[in-house]
């Protein structure tokens, strides 16, 4: 009897331990949900401001409203639209607010439609991967640059929509597959380069850098005066990854003397050629050009730190930072410039492509409502509103948003080529996370340049084989 008790006790304890351990299998998901809930909080708060945003943008809307109204609302009024629609994005706060304002207007016009629109922030990709695995996608979702490579098998082709013909032909390569099918309505587009402090560059007596050597030399000059060469908010490891991704345009992709891009696409790339890029990031840190808290600073602090007017450069894709910093301190004037080249003989480029773009889940039960929502969003005045809020240009013909001082930069560099975002075109799906790891590890000093190259190579081979 005693032995039986002992056995029972052991079984109970082992069972309890096992249950607690196995709780871990659910732990990731649980925590992810918590994070999602936390991310929803600002979203919910920001919804309060939507009415104001809607009224602010209404004046510009009047001119083009008549032309587009007939086409876009015809489907909506044909029958009383009804349905609960889930719509998700990973857009930043400004973009979210602007899109939400448009959706609120849509719901006013279509009282039978209820749109639950949320932003998931940095957890968006994890959430979407989990939902792809369970075939439970939102009715409408943002594709953050991956409408073709990652999401196309879940999306309804949209070439049959009236707004399809309004997309700039030059932008099509970013969102169309080999058969020319598109799966999203592109609202704005990325046009990444370097953000530079106009006032400080003037004070240092230097021009906007055309090469990376000039860029580093300006950082050195700035450091002597106590300025931060390059600002990084590395608590979110997407920031150093973004720096690598943008810099890779001229370190690797646009080299006139090499055929790296072909090699990357074919899987024959010699990864030793990645070393100069890792070395560049590592040097920024070791030479003291990065902010002291480059590994721990939270991205929410970026505009405030830019507004302190002590930052020379940011290698980032979020041009709305320029306006947000100026709102805090009008004297902090930043501009957008192309990505410096490796040498004077090489060309400078911008990195660009799909940004805020929405597709419709092909198995949605409310396809008619979803199409009506995209048609409404596609109205030029609505596209303009979102572009102005996000500080990004539009890929839709005849939509010319007022992007403030950045417009001057777009005009100045109108002849500079916009190359497609490096990782989306030349790396297999999933390598972004490897770049996040190595970028953060390089500035944190927990990885050598050689280790970073080996990590990139190993993950590239794994993911290339999964294609």
């Amino acid at each position: 009897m005693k032995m039986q008790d002992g056995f029972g006790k052991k079984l109970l304890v082992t069972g309890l331990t096992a249950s607690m351990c196995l709780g871990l299998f659910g732990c990731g998901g649980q925590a992810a949900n918590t994070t999602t809930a936390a991310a929803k909080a600002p979203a919910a708060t920001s919804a309060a401001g939507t009415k104001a945003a809607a009224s602010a943008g209404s004046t510009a809307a009047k001119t083009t409203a008549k032309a587009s109204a007939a086409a876009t609302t015809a489907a909506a009024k044909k029958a009383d639209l009804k349905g609960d629609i889930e719509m998700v994005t990973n857009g930043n706060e400004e973009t979210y607010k602007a899109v939400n304002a448009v959706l609120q207007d849509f719901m006013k016009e279509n009282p039978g439609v209820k749109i639950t629109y949320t932003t998931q922030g940095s957890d968006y990709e994890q959430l979407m991967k989990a939902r792809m695995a369970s075939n439970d996608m939102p009715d409408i979702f943002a594709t953050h640059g991956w409408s073709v490579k990652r999401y196309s098998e879940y999306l309804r082709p949209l070439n049959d929509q009236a707004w399809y013909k309004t997309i700039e032909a030059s932008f099509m390569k970013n969102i169309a597959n080999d058969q020319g099918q598109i799966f999203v309505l592109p609202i704005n587009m990325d046009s990444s380069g370097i953000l530079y402090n106009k006032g400080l560059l003037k004070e240092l007596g230097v021009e906007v850098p055309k090469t990376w050597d000039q860029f580093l030399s300006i950082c050195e000059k700035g450091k002597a005066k106590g300025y931060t060469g390059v600002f990084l908010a590395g608590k979110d490891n997407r920031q150093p990854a973004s720096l690598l991704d943008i810099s890779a345009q001229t370190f690797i992709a646009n080299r006139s003397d090499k055929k790296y891009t072909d090699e990357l696409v074919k899987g024959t790339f010699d990864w030793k050629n990645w070393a100069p890029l890792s070395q560049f990031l590592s040097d920024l840190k070791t030479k003291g050009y990065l902010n002291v808290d480059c590994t721990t600073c939270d991205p929410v602090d970026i505009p405030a730190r830019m507004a302190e007017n002590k930052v020379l450069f940011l290698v980032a894709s979020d041009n709305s930072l320029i306006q947000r910093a100026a709102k805090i301190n009008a004297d902090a004037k930043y501009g957008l410039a192309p990505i410096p080249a490796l040498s004077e003989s090489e060309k400078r480029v911008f990195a660009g492509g799909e940004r805020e773009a929405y597709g419709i889940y092909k198995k949605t039960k409310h396809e008619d409502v979803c199409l009506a929502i995209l048609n409404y969003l596609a109205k030029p005045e609505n596209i303009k509103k979102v572009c102005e809020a996000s500080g990004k240009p539009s890929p839709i013909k005849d939509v010319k948003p007022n992007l403030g001082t950045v417009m001057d930069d777009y005009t100045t560099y109108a002849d500079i080529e916009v190359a497609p975002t490096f990782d989306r075109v030349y790396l297999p799906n999933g390598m972004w996370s490897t770049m996040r790891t190595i970028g953060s590890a390089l500035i944190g000093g927990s990885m050598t340049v050689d280790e970073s190259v080996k990590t990139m190579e190993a993950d590239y081979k794994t993911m290339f084989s999964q294609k």
Partner: protein
Amino acid sequence: MKRKKELSIDILYLPALLLMILFVVYPLLSGINISLTNWNGYSAKYKYVGLSNYIRLFQDKMFYTALKNTVIYGVGSTAIQTVLGIAYALLLQKEFRGQTLTRVVVYLPAMVASLIMGYISYFLVQYNHGAVNDIVKLFGGTPVDWMADGNRAVWIIVIINALQFVGKTMIVMIAGLQSIPESYEEAAEIDGASYRQRLKYITLPLLIPAITTSVVLNLIGGLKLFGIILATTSGGPGYSTHSLSTLINYLYFQNQNAGYATTVGLFLFLFIMVMGTVVRRWFEKKAEALS
């Protein structure tokens, strides 16, 4: 008659058994299956890769760093929580004005979600305008980027976790102290035993069952630490503060390597089970030796 009674008891096991199969056995078997593939976590396509994920486990620097950190999170947090928990329990067992309020204050952080606790702590230790650096500056010191050094960040996370859950340990210890008959202490006091002697020879030995429960629970909690790491460092700089739990999250959802992530998950399952069992057995032997 006896067989009939046993049969009815056996039937009562069934619901629990079904739940166990559904939530423990099936996920475990499914996990083993996934660990033998190169599944990316969402695609319908995958290949069986044999034991390569298990071989990779022992060649992966990131895994070793996460394993080392996991041990520090588990053991470090447990040690701090146990020592502080006993101290709080001894202090708050005595009746004084504000005793209940103090207990509530000590327990309060345990009621907050780990993720929220992590964000609050981040505001304390962040470089720019962090509360700790503001105090450092107040005394003329130079601000420090506390979380920039991986090794230091790991210990800061240990302290945050320990302070958050010390209240739970305190409650278990208070319950343990209340189960010790007062007559033992009174007899020792009459025999002239000092407070330290009473603590060493009566209180602590009789607290061992409570300590066992608390240590095993805290150890398991520390070994699966997730929320605080995510909120304070996200596993960085680089991967220097990853625990096995955050590494699983990273590998599965960011690195798109569900097969390997599941392998790490299975390792963690076995690791926690072995650690929990060994620690429990050690305390049980200690208690047997004293009785």
